[in-house]
């Protein structure tokens, strides 16, 4: 980033690009979430776990919910996308993906300016977020 640009109080072009991508992605995600939720609770699209059963499950640990509700974990929800409850994950996943998507253009932009250290940092962040999203790292559960 040029010193002049950095100290004139204006956001850098890379920061503006990031902001624009985030704006459209985040509000699209929220909009999709509202629409799919209304489709879900109205019963227009039938859910995988019946609505009346969920209050019996959400007071229990997650493993009970997965087992009794026959709910898949990880990316298994994609197979059930036609079901009202899992259709909601389209908006949720879009929101959770936005940071990763916005970080990708930063890498070539920083490289072009010769900021290899920062570009490496952006690449590492993409890897961290992709690893978290992949579900490859497995841990315990209640």
């Amino acid at each position, binding site marked *: 980033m040029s010193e002049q640009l950095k100290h*004139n109080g204006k956001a850098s072009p890379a920061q503006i690009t990031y902001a624009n991508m985030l704006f459209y992605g985040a509000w699209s995600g929220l909009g999709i979430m509202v629409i799919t939720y209304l489709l879900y609770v109205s019963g227009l699209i039938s859910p995988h776990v019946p609505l009346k*059963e969920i209050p019996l499950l959400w007071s229990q640990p997650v493993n009970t919910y997965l087992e009794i509700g026959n709910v898949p974990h990880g990316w298994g929800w994609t197979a059930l996308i036609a079901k009202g*409850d899992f259709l909601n994950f389209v908006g949720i996943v879009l929101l959770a993906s936005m940071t990763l998507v916005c970080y990708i253009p930063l890498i070539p932009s920083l490289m072009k300016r010769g900021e290899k250290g920062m570009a490496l*940092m952006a690449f*590492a962040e993409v890897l961290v977020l992709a690893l978290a999203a992949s579900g490859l790292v497995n841990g315990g559960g209640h």
Partner: protein
Amino acid sequence: MKMDHLRLPAKIALFALFGVLLFAVAAYASGNETASAMAAATDGAHLGPDTGVAWWVWPLVLLFFCFILGIIAVLAGVGGGVLYVPLVSGFFPFHLDFVRGAGLMVALAGALAAGPGLLKRNFASLRLAMPVALIASSCAIVGAYLGMALPTNVVQLCLGGTIMFIAILLLVSKNTAHPVVTKQDALSLALGMDGAYHDPATGELVQWKTHRTLPGLLLFIVIGVMAGMFGLGAGWANVPVLNLMMGAPLKVAVGTSKFLLSITDTSAAWVYLNKGCVIPLMAIPSIIGLMLGSFVGVRLLAKAKPTFIRYMVIGVLLLAGGKALMKGLGI
């Protein structure tokens, strides 16, 4: 009805009311469906108690509750997640696993919506955020797994202690609008942690740089783990570290902290999502309610008495922290 005569908060409140009504009608319409038989409980897993409350009541209550929470959070200058997790886990029938999953989504959605404006006005600095975010988001994954692996009562106990600590932090911390940074340290210089922004309040161009960068970055290890473990968001910790320790001006610290949440909470949110800890029926009304509440809160900010609300929130946090501690102790 002519909407032109209404002020913006009233319009938003009307919009929220319309949303609630729409939800109620939609929920009522689907209320006649017959409950299909669910797989029989096996291997010790069993259904929770039937409270006798219709399924659609809880999301509706949650939407309204989070709407109020959103207003209070803005007026008190705290993030939604820090109020959401202790209060919802304390006073609603949801298991902590789902409350933390929804809490992270609430904090994430708020940060994503606020991020673009903060970045464009240069109140959030990408340069300042990138190194911090890499540390905090990596550690948030560790925190999320730790939170999932530890017994629920242990997490409740830690959550109670953390909430009480946050309440005390809010009570005693005195942020500085423009901290004095006499010399930018070598690490800050190497990472380019400096910049400038136009302050609309004074019309001045404010130049800033950071110091004590290494201890500041190390603190983000702890902040990341806690954000992931409890699903709280971490604005309560980001701001004092960026402002008081590293010397970023308050506006840059607050803006960058909010933007940082969009990165830190993303990594932890994925862990909770992949583990099945996000139930849309409760998570989505929480997100929407809190966001609508935040919009109204911002508009009310000019008229409200923030000091009173801040003390009220500290009181509520102490109460919620105490309740979480008691839950953890099985009292």
